[in-house]
């Protein structure tokens, strides 16, 4: 895109700046629209599993429900508790929201269609997702209220615990793909097992995917791991004192994070923008459509789990992270690197 703007007679710096801004808008605007629709989808799926109707009043089939909710919170008054640390209280939701958008910079939507094609794309994702906790911790502390504070404590412990096992799972993928670049990882999944595109068909990596899916739910604090906003214990967790747009930013950021986890599942284990099977006919469908379909599928799985699985207790959550996922993923790092060495994968 930089070359296109340069052909319009702009200098390299300006062309680079404008094309980067265009790229950011091309990702962020559809993402925001997607988040609005995915909130609606989440409520509809949840309702269907509970034999309810879900939102069905605003617009045809209730499709405009999220926009009505957005308008509602936009028109509400922003309340800042008088004991709160005002600056940090207002910055916290902005951090959550920004961080949720940042990681999308390295997700490849097609071969070469990626905003920032960096060598260490996967590390970047890991780095950005580890920042997500700050929005929650700062909110909990600056609210100066006990339930948000408990929630912040839980969130920081929970996210650090699951990041450890996610790190080991990602190392397994990187070992097999031989690169930290997400596009290279997608390319490495072509014809991985017979004609199936995707690491998930590999018997050694399939358990890694299952653990990644569950860790992803814990990392994004989705049900059944939504202990940071467990309403039966903590009112609404770190969001308790928030109202109006700052509350909405948490909502949007949370769902953008969930979509990101779905996109990572698709990209790292299910072949990203590649079609599921390596058949020439399937390549007629553009890559981003495959990626979108996979993201929607995983979002359905996330909603399904939310609708059916009861919330974990906090000690069970910690046990799962440290006593189950950590040793198992560490074992798999050993097994997979041993297997790759034995079969001469690196030669």
């Amino acid at each position: 895109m930089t070359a296109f703007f340069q052909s319009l007679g702009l200098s390299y710096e300006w062309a680079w700046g404008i094309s980067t801004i265009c790229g950011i808008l091309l990702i962020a605007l559809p993402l925001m629209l997607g988040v609005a629709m995915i909130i609606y989808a989440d409520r509809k799926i949840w309702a269907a599993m509970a034999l309810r109707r879900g939102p069905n009043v605003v617009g045809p089939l209730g499709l405009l429900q999220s926009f009505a909710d957005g308008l509602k919170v936009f028109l509400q008054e922003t309340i800042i508790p008088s004991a709160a640390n005002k600056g940090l209280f207002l910055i916290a939701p902005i951090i959550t929201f920004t961080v949720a958008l940042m990681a999308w910079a390295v997700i490849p939507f097609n071969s070469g269609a990626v905003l920032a094609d960096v060598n260490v794309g996967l590390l970047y994702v890991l780095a950005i997702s580890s920042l997500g906790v700050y929005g929650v911790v700062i909110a909990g502390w600056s609210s100066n209220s006990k339930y948000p504070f408990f929630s912040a404590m839980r969130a920081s412990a929970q996210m650090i615990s699951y990041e450890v096992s996610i790190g080991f799972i990602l190392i397994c993928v990187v070992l097999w793909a031989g690169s930290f670049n997400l596009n290279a990882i997608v390319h490495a999944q072509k014809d991985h097992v017979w004609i199936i595109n995707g690491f998930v068909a590999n018997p050694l990596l399939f358990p890694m995917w299952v653990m990644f899916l569950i860790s992803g739910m814990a990392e994004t604090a989705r049900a059944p791991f939504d202990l940071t906003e467990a309403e039966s214990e903590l009112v609404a967790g770190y969001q308790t004192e928030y109202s109006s747009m700052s509350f909405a930013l948490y909502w949007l950021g949370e769902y953008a994070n969930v979509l990101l986890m779905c996109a990572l599942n698709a990209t790292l284990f299910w072949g990203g923008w590649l079609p599921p099977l390596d058949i020439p006919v399937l390549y007629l469908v553009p890559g981003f459509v495959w990626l979108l379909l996979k993201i929607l599928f995983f979002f359905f799985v996330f909603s399904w789990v939310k609708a059916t699985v009861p919330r974990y207790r906090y000690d069970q959550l910690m046990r799962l992270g440290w006593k189950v996922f950590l040793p198992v993923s560490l074992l798999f790092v050993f097994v997979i690197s041993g297997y790759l060495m034995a079969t001469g994968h690196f030669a």
Partner: protein
Amino acid sequence: MIQAFAFYLFATLMIASGAITILARNPVHSVLWLILAFFNAAGLMVLVGAEFIAMLLIIVYVGAVAVLFLFVVMMLDIDFAELRAGFVNNFPLGFVLAVVLLAELVLGVGAYRAGALPLGVADGSGAAAAGLSNTAAIGALLYSRYLFLFEAAGVILLVAMIGAIVLTHRQRSGVRGQNISKQVARRPEDATINVQPEVGKGVSL
């Protein structure tokens, strides 16, 4: 132009946030400014072409160390009047430490300028061996030339970690732990009985 602009932006913000880290009255604010300083340091490393180090800096320091730091500082109830009271007593020690740090900094810069340290050049051109991403370059160096040091560092960290766990672990009595496998193995037949008691007889429990 973009590089120069980004460099001055990151460098200024880093020095400023480092200064505010020390000057901030609230320790939580200090930690947050420290995190901003880490961030800008990572930005500078990206600029010189060391993206792997930059990402590790964010993952390790911002993502883990600073979170725990914040965790501890948030829970502390620090009394500032008490802290200030020790200022005069601790001043000589602090001054000596500051002088030592300054001397080390001057020595380091001097050695670099004299060419004694093969650090590469500031414009990033010497960042990685030709045709090799710097992740691969660091890996090749760590696992060949510095293999022993690298693994020794790993073993030391492991010992430290186990030591910390052993030191803080308390064996508490009277706690009923949860045995997950036992719970999962339990079948309905083991836990329930179906009885049809006669009227007025009751059930023995």
